[in-house]
């Protein structure tokens, strides 16, 4: 066999010296954050839809408030923490996550068909949507920018350890990785491993330890 640069390695001759600048250049070209053109375009679109009588501005405000204030990763943290302290709840969560999550009052849009994936010392779960931005809104809120971005969507299924490294996460030797590509309406919630040194903690205190990234699989929980 011939020798070539390793597959799935740190990259190529251009990975170091030049790529950083080019990535910045490309990122600069990406329309979005703080882009005045998009701001005007969306403002015009809203005016148009209001004028045509298709949307009610008050409803827009309510939607925004819902996802900015009410629905977010603290819901998922509650689910996870409860599963740590209540073995029967944990079993219900692993058997029928949609129903178990609904017990706590969470559900609805983008969480109609939930599956919980429990991390263990042997297996680490990571969730991605390579085709768009599927994400379990009722338990995690809106997806972070990186979850919807090309770097994450392209690499998670091919090089999940490289992705984890971008988050500063290194899994122990012997931990297998299972990546779940959300290609249908099923939504996945990762249940991270309970951190050591939390014996006897109550659900609220435990929930405060659970990060959003740990419920996607891009984070792990350290001892408090």
């Amino acid at each position, binding site marked *: 066999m011939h020798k070539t640069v390793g597959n*799935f390695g740190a990259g190529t001759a251009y990975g170091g010296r030049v790529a950083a600048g080019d990535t910045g250049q*490309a990122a600069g*070209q*990406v*329309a*979005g*954050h*703080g*882009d005045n053109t*998009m*701001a005007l375009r969306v*403002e015009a*679109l809203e005016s*148009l*839809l209001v*004028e*045509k*009588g*298709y*949307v*009610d501005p*008050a*409803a*827009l405000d309510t*939607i925004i408030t*819902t*996802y900015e204030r009410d*629905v977010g*990763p603290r819901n998922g943290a509650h689910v996870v923490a409860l599963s740590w302290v209540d073995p029967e709840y944990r079993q219900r969560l692993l058997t029928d996550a949609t129903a178990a999550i609904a017990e706590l009052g969470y559900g*609805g*849009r983008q969480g*109609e*068909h939930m*599956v919980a994936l429990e991390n263990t010392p042997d297996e680490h779960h990571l969730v991605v949507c*390579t*085709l*768009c*931005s599927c994400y379990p809104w009722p338990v995690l*809120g*809106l997806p972070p*920018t*990186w979850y919807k971005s*090309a*770097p994450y969507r*392209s690499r998670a*299924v*091919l090089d999940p350890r490289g992705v984890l490294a*971008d*988050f500063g996460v290194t899994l122990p030797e012997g931990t297998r*990785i*299972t*990546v*779940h*590509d959300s*290609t*249908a*309406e*099923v939504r996945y919630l990762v249940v991270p491993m309970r951190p050591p040194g939390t014996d006897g903690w109550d659900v609220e205190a435990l929930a405060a330890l659970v990060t959003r*990234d740990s419920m996607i699989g*891009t984070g792990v929980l350290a001892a408090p």
Partner: protein
Amino acid sequence: MNGAADLGGMMGFGPVVPEPEDERFHADWERRALALTLAAARPGRWNIDQSRHARETLHPAVYLTSSYYAIWVQGLERLLVSSGLVSAEEIAQRRALGPGEPARVLTAAEVPAVLATGTRADRPEHRPAAFAVGEPVRTVVRNPTGHTRLPRYARGKAGVVERVHGVHVLPDAHAHGLGEQPEWLYTVRFDGRELWGADAAADLTVTIDAWESYLEPGTREGSPSSA
């Protein structure tokens, strides 16, 4: 379709940039883009699969230079025009050129219930499932110009059924006004080396959710369990 949205396995996009948990929007227009996208779906002129198809048909140069909310905005503009709710001229001129059609409008009062209810994709079981948990399968090779949820990297690959989810609406049909044509939906597990080759990490597994028509019976040899 093999559009720019089908990103799995692509390279060259640089590192993932983490973000704090409380950073929910980066500009006010993102808030409005989210809310508009949700509210404009209320008249029922398109479904989730048509929305996804509207986004994936953006020119790849546009898709890859747009942030995700910008992709949503451009997808929404296409849906509004293709559904006839708004004309292309109105989008271009950024103003109404005539009255709107009668439409069911989402009110503020309805928002909590609508968001808390969602839209289920499962349908009654109308025939037995073709595959059971643990069965070897192989994904089909297919490159439709229309919408599909079988990513390019997972076509023609041997896997094993890991979960059976019941019968779900088929996006390939639903995105094109061809009805729901519901099918059994499965989670299928692949060995990383089956997807990416012998140089892939030996301890990588990837799952996708696949409708029954995406799958053919597999053979034990080709399955990850015997690898």
